[in-house]
């Protein structure tokens, strides 16, 4: 079972066992990790589950055009920005370290 370490903007860490098949967003919601709003519930159409993937054991899937469109409007976008609803927990990605932004909008 992969382990995801969430790091809030203020540095607070949450390390959780993630169920394969859930998205990183759903894992954060399940364990009440603050900092992800996920207004649209996982459709990559609101941009409020933005996160920064600091590390992952395996490679991440590519950013698709819809995710790119939404990330493009985030004022705090970085090279490792992702929408956490678009990252499915899997053995091939494995453990991850995910930083959360200062705000979602």
């Amino acid at each position, binding site marked *: 079972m992969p382990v995801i370490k969430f790091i809030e903007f203020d540095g607070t860490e949450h390390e959780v066992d993630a169920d394969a098949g859930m998205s990183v967003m759903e894992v954060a919601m399940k364990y009440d990790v603050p900092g992800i709003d996920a207004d649209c519930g996982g*459709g990559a159409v609101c941009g409020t589950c933005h996160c920064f993937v600091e590390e992952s054991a395996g490679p991440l899937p590519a950013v698709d055009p819809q995710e790119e469109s939404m990330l493009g*409007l985030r004022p705090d976008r970085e090279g490792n920005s992702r929408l956490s609803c678009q990252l499915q927990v899997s053995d091939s990605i494995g453990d991850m370290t995910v930083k959360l932004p200062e705000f979602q909008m």
Partner: protein
Amino acid sequence: MNHRAEPMLADPLTTPLEELDVSDPKRFEYDCWQPLFKRLREESPVHFQAESPAGPFWSITRFDDIVEVEKNTEIFSSEPTIAIVDPPPERRSRMFIAMDQPEHDVQRRAVQPVVAPKNLQEFESLIRKRTGEALDALPEGETFDWVELVSRNLTTQMLATLFDFPWDIRHKLSDWSDAVTSDERMTAGQGLTQEDRLEIVMEILEVFTRLWHERVGDDVESFDLIRLMQRDQNTANMVDDPMNYIGNLMLLIVGGNDTTRNSMSGGVLFLNDFPEEFARVKADRSLIPSMVSEIIRFQTPLSHMRRTVTRDIEFRGQHMKAGDKVILWYCSANRDESVIPEAEMFQIDRSGVRNHAAFGFGIHRCMGNRLAEMQLRVVWEEALKRFSDIRMVEPPTRLCHNFVRGFSRMPVQVTRY
């Protein structure tokens, strides 16, 4: 409190669908739109109407279909306009809500910082102070208009702050907001003619052009929308393109005004219609943030947005042609039981309360959504501190409008603790 006498409107359940005007503003004025949209979701979720005051158009009424259309910005374009009616080509102002990528992104990014949550934290204490003052000034033991003294008053102050607009004439912002959304083709003939509307648009442009020139190049530390445009290299010359400048101004004036104002009024109506929910939030004010999302869903202050088909396609088995208008009925999506259980009920702590359609989806999702939520949250936090009851004494008067869902008058009485 919800229902005024209905006019003679065709029965939405027995009249053949092709004889019904989905865009009839009267159904919104008399708040009897729900059965027709429920029927459309069930019988004809992608529905073509050949004739209306705004010409032929498609209606999309299911939640999931609206999300699909909003994701597909290449086929469902936001250009040339997101209104159901087309302006004459020579009067076509350009606003970023009615632009596709990449131009949309560039212009939206310039003004977006004004509503970034970081900036909002600084606004919150100011909003709380003004809200408290407005609520303290309300008369007790007599009937007053909540729309005028609370909703309109507070949203006008906020909009003036966002523009750093001259305080003594700030009422103009709300008047302008009402005027630019008022079109006789969207209001069963009650709105302005295009000539009258043009006169107001020219006044807005004149005032804001003066403000632009007064501010350009100054060193004032301010996050107002005018200076944000001036200081972003992509929009620094916006004033030289009046059709683009006026377009974005109208967008920001309407976006920051009508929507929040009408949700502020809607909350009073819903808490009166669902007194058990009123009792719950009075007993537990930690429910306010969730209640705010539910108010926005239940009100859905803009009933729809429009897209325009860029090439012939088949969508859900229907053949759409390039140039066809597609109306995304957010009000219907927010009553879609397949996504929102018991959607006709106002439930302040429903699960997935943030997952509603009122802000739209995709790249055009409401830019000011966090500001709107904060304003509404502060109003209810401050109101519930002061008032043991906010009682509606007569049914509200609703707008006869098929785009802006709102109220012109809501007589209430308050009881202080």
